[in-house]
């Protein structure tokens, strides 16, 4: 029996166990850095090699690989297996996860060189990879959910990696808790699905909905599962954790919060396309939320001053684009954008890491500038990735974004002009804020402190090499026609015949938007952003709204956080616990004390009173005797 899929999954797990026990304070730090690096980077590369082998087999006309690892539980006659499944969609995901993952592992060698938690870092990174592979290769929703939760855990551990800083630890907590809120919807969706279909294997679920006759509304299931996706993929309303997650090390932001983990929601909805194809209401909702999130995040990114926060909001926005594609039925296109986004976003984040490394830890772009000559490799790769995300041809982002815009307008399953308008506006904003970032960070006169400026240096080859590879992938990756590759599995939606002739126009339009963004950024942010700040000062209130991220966090705190705290404090603690529970117990005790005090007053010490009571007793006894004798 073929165990290649299991090996893919187990390689990073072995890395986690080895590094976790030998290289951390837990195990006594028995091995030195080179062994940690070899284990931590080598095992993901082995996974990538095996994945390539499986992919080659699939390309040669093979059937999807399915492996049953073991039977997890038998409950009431039904068996729940742990099985792994590799079809075209899973192959794309596995290659992205292991490939980009291995590159980021290599980058981390240079970035985390001086950190005392080096071994712990690689252990956590490997465990993340393990859970992500479980998520992607799982055959049933149950296995996917295990991976889903596991990556949430890894994300928490890595965001709060420098846990001595309370803010960073709190950011990790926020990420985990927000994810869990989404998972409640996911779980209920799973329960409904199991009740209706009788199995949790995703290919079986898709087939059941395609065949019809499932006794539950596909839209209901779709919306419930999408709630989980909003948590994991940072869409409205559960997007609040992603900007805070930038507290973690930059390679973590690149791997988890750009390339892989946040795309799990997109993958899950694409995998269950059989359900969403029959759920028009759910699909409309997804498209609407995706578009709203994309626009909202892009507008906030326009005024951010932390280099990583700009990229975080950019990720939220691009994920919104992916969900727009899902919402109009173009599942393969969403995966295509996921694929290209992994390359250029990882390149952008790692480039930002390189900048931060060069400046000795500074992240404020208003105090950067003039770095292009001093760290040329970083600048060139960053520029290439920026052009890719803006959508300039022939880079990767152009192909995927153009397809999304086209289907947003023309798909028969929910495409409409308003949707296209919002998406197009967001594309313009994307180009604008990304080129703004490029200009303020690298070009113009230097605006940093003199001694920081003196220490600017290019990053080591482990870091710049990875940047180069990712930049190359961002350039040529778009030529791999992922949607057509995935067509047998994820058919593209039909296009409205009336709009068919607009395809070329949309393409030209999207290029135009990208160029407009480039020119706009050059115009407003050329001289260290003075013209941009002047515009910002004129629209002061709008600027404050955007800078405050539309005050969503504050709204959540006021509407949910504080009432919950109030209920816990006043209702449950003071009333329920102290007054009811403690009060009843204390009340019983004081009842005993008071009654004993009252009864004790019978003993007055006066003999005559005792004698009187005895006399009364005699009288009573005599009376009773003579009544009943």
């Amino acid at each position, binding site marked *: 029996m073929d165990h290649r899929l299991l090996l893919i999954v187990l390689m990073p797990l072995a890395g986690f166990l080895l590094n976790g026990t030998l290289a951390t304070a837990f195990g006594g730090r028995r091995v030195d850095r080179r062994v940690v690096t070899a284990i931590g980077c080598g095992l993901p590369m082995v996974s990538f090699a095996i994945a390539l082998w499986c992919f080659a087999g699939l390309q040669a006309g093979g059937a999807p690989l399915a492996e049953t690892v073991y039977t997890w539980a038998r409950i009431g006659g039904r068996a729940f297996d742990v099985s792994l499944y590799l079809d075209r969609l899973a192959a794309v995901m596995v290659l992205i996860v292991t490939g980009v993952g291995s590159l980021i592992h290599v980058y981390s060698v240079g970035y985390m060189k001086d950190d005392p938690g080096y071994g712990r870092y690689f252990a956590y990174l490997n465990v993340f990879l393990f859970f992500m592979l479980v998520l992607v290769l799982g055959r049933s929703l149950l296995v996917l959910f295990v991976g889903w939760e596991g990556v949430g855990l890894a994300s928490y551990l890595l965001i709060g990696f420098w846990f001595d800083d309370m803010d960073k630890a709190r950011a990790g907590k926020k990420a985990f808790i927000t994810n869990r809120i989404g998972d409640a919807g996911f779980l209920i969706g799973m329960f409904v699905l199991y009740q209706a279909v009788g199995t949790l294997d995703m290919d079986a679920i898709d087939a059941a909905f395609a065949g019809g006759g499932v006794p539950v509304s596909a839209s209901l299931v779709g919306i419930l599962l999408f709630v989980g996706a909003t948590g994991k993929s940072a869409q409205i309303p559960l997007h609040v954790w992603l900007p805070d997650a930038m507290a973690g090390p930059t390679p973590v932001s690149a791997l988890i919060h750009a390339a892989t983990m946040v795309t799990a929601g997109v993958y899950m909805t694409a995998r269950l396309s059989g359900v969403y194809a029959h759920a028009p209401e759910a699909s409309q909702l997804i498209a609407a939320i995706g578009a709203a999130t994309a626009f909202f995040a892009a507008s906030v990114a326009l005024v951010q001053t932390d280099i990583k926060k700009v990229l975080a909001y950019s990720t939220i926005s691009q994920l919104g684009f992916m969900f727009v594609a899902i919402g109009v039925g173009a599942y393969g296109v969403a995966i295509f954008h996921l694929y290209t986004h992994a390359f250029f976003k990882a390149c952008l984040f790692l480039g930002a890491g390189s900048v931060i490394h060069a400046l000795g830890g500074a992240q404020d772009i208003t105090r950067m500038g003039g770095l292009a000559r001093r760290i040329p490799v970083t600048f060139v790769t960053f520029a290439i990735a920026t052009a890719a995300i803006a959508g300039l041809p022939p880079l990767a982002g152009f192909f995927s974004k153009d397809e999304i815009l086209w289907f947003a307008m023309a798909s028969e399953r929910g495409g409409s002009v308003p949707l296209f308008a919002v998406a197009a506006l967001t594309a313009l904003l994307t180009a604008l804020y990304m080129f703004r970032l490029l200009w303020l960070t690298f070009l113009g006169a230097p605006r940093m402190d003199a001694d920081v400026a003196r220490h600017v240096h290019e990053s080591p080859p482990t870091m710049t090499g990875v940047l180069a590879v990712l930049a190359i992938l961002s350039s040529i990756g778009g030529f791999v026609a992922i949607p057509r590759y995935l067509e047998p599995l994820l058919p593209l939606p039909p296009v409205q015949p009336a709009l068919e002739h607009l395809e070329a126009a949309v393409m030209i339009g999207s290029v135009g938007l990208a160029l407009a963004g480039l020119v706009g950024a050059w115009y407003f942010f050329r001289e260290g952003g003075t013209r941009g700040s002047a515009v910002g000062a004129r629209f002061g209130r709008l600027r404050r709204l955007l800078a405050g991220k539309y005050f969503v966090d504050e709204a959540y705190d006021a509407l949910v956080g504080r009432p919950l705290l109030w209920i816990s404090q006043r209702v449950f603690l003071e009333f329920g616990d102290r007054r009811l529970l403690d009060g009843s117990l204390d009340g019983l005790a004081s009842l005993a004390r008071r009654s004993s005090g009252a009864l004790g007053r019978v003993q007055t010490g*006066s003999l*005559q*009173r005792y004698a*009187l009571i005895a*006399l*009364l007793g*005699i*009288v009573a006894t*005599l*009376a009773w005797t*003579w009544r009943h004798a």
Partner: protein
Amino acid sequence: MGGALTVLFAVGAVAAAAAMLVARHPMRVALALIVAMLCLAGVYAALGVHVIAVFQVLIYVGAVMVFMVYVIMLLDVRDTSYTRRFSPLLVPAVVAALALVAALLVVVVEAPSAPPGTSPPPFGVRAFSQAFLDEYWLHFELVSVLLVAAVVAAIAVVKAGARRHG
């Protein structure tokens, strides 16, 4: 004749007891008690139980009450028990006592009456001592044990008192 004397002495005993209740000075209470006991002795004599009558006077009046009178004279303390005779429990006690009397009288009234006419012969010392030592000698011994205990206790009390006051 005997009947009339019995009634007379009986009434006298009750009257003396009532006088005991209201007298203030303990000495007057003692004297009233002596009168009551003497009346009771008269009752016993009128009934023909001469032994008991004599013993009543000799032991009760002659020993017990003399001792009482002696102690009253020794402890002539004019304290609050003189000025305020009755305890706060007067009213409830009176009520309870009346209830007791009522309860007990119920029995007395229902008691079967003796066959009329027959009056038992006088009970002299000879008859008494015969009955005493024939059937109740064990009780006598036990009582003497009690008396010994009383003597020992009295000595102990005196000694304790002596130790405390030098």
